[in-house]
């Protein structure tokens, strides 16, 4: 139990520190790397509370795919750091406001303030009663029965976003030469070459 508490404080401290470094660090590539560290430690926190499925999905989706693409883009961009710093004071109030709103919502949701406390304890009691199974199965059962429509809607929203991004960036430019694999494979020996009998000193 002591070891678990110790592990929690270590992971939580690293998560918070890495989160702060994402904002503070001067180099955007460092920011993304600290973001990855924060994701990773959040996954460790999930493992500590026994939500190993969510932890692994967090690592696979965010660390393994999303953050790679972030890093990809940030490394390619030639970001001017002084320009980036200029807007800081201008945007600070908006950012702080969003932070306060998120924090308040979290407090409400966790039931520390107000009457929301029933939900989370109720969920825990519910979970403890019916779950001799591992949490992967538990999530699957809830997701594909009770929240089936919401789950499908979430999927469709993501699909629409993906198609939207493709439509926005897809341009048909005339005169672009492409590799057509079907044509290349279907080319026969007769089409590709001719055998010529060359007379001596005659040339082709």
């Amino acid at each position, binding site marked *: 139990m002591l070891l678990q508490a110790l592990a929690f404080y270590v992971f939580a401290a690293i998560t918070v520190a890495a989160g702060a470094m994402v904002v503070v660090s001067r180099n955007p590539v460092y920011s993304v790397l600290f973001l990855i560290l924060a994701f990773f430690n959040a996954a460790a926190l999930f493992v500590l509370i026994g939500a*190993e*499925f969510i932890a692994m999905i967090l690592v696979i989706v965010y660390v*393994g795919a999303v953050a*790679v*693409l972030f*890093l990809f883009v940030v*490394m390619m961009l030639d970001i001017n750091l002084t320009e980036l710093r200029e807007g800081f004071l201008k945007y600070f109030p908006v950012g702080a406001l969003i932070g306060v709103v998120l924090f308040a919502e979290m407090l409400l949701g966790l039931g520390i303030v107000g009457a929301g406390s029933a939900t989370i304890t109720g969920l825990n009691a519910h979970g403890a009663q019916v779950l001799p199974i591992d949490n992967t199965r538990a999530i699957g059962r809830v997701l594909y029965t009770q929240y089936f429509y919401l789950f499908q809607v979430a999927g469709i929203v993501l699909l629409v976003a993906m198609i939207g991004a493709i439509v926005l960036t897809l341009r048909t430019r005339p005169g672009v030469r492409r590799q057509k*694999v079907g044509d290349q494979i279907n080319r026969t020996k007769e089409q590709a070459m001719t055998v010529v009998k060359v007379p001596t000193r005659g040339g082709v």
Partner: protein
Amino acid sequence: MSADLVQFFTVNWLGQAILMVAQCLAVTVPLLVAVAYMTYVDRKIWAAIQLRRGPNVVGPFGLLQPFADGLKLVLKETIVPSSANGVLFIIAPMIAFMTALVAWAVVPFDNGWVIADINVGILYLFAISSLGVYGIIIAGWASNSKYAFLGALRSAAQMVSYEVSIGFVLITVLLCVGSLNLSDVVLAQSGGFWHWFFLPLLPMFVIFFVSALAETNRTPFDLPMSEAELVAGFHTEYSAMTFGLFFLGEYANMILLSALGAILFLGGWMSPIPYAPFTYVPGVVWFALKIAFLLFVFSWTKGTLPRYRYDQLMRLGWKVFLPVSLGWVVLTAAVLQFGGWVPKP
């Protein structure tokens, strides 16, 4: 709390810690020896394919060659380019090597022979293998060199693309098993080689193997380090042991993906024929033989095939493997559902 109870807990805890370290060493040391000899066997196989002799000078049959190479790498000077990002430049090979090693914690070598028998073993392996790309991309960026950077970008795009189809292959297998635990995956294939998953899921086995080639940046997908265009790709600027870590990590990753292939499709530690003389052989040996077979195919491919062009690589990943594997997931789910073969938990 009485004094001897406290002592009991401390001794117990210490005992547990010692046991854990011993287990880790028992996996890591043979793995590193296997990695060292994989480089030797690899070179011998290419040599045989090209009608050469291969390494045959250091020791009998050249058997000490990997140690000579390792010694050379350790003794050479580590050069950090003056314009490189020092910290990240050193960290990158460590990440590449470490991610190749930590994944072995969940690999079952025999029935119950596994360091961490966790419920989400497949996902853990998938998560760790998706981290391997960071070593490469950080190396490419920190080197501050155009060849290294281009190699890293190619590699990142390639590994992310092929992870998608590997993910679908894993989903197909776990649909057939009904569990994410790797030991359960092996146990679901018990009863002879005709029960192994490579027969019903043959297309997925092929997709898995080709994606594994792409994940480990091996020929025909070794574009990240294609020497004709990019000098040596992402590790152009690396020397001595920092290069050595990338090299060892690459081979450890190959062995890891072969082990994953053996677990998912070739019945892990199971003997191919479940009758008397074959079942006397320990499961570890069968597992090692299956890994060795897949590794031989890795080397064989390298000795045989030419390198893909980059657009061909991306086309294969996104336009061929992704639809085929997605379709196969749907097909498997439908067959299991309507054939009444859905595994019961």
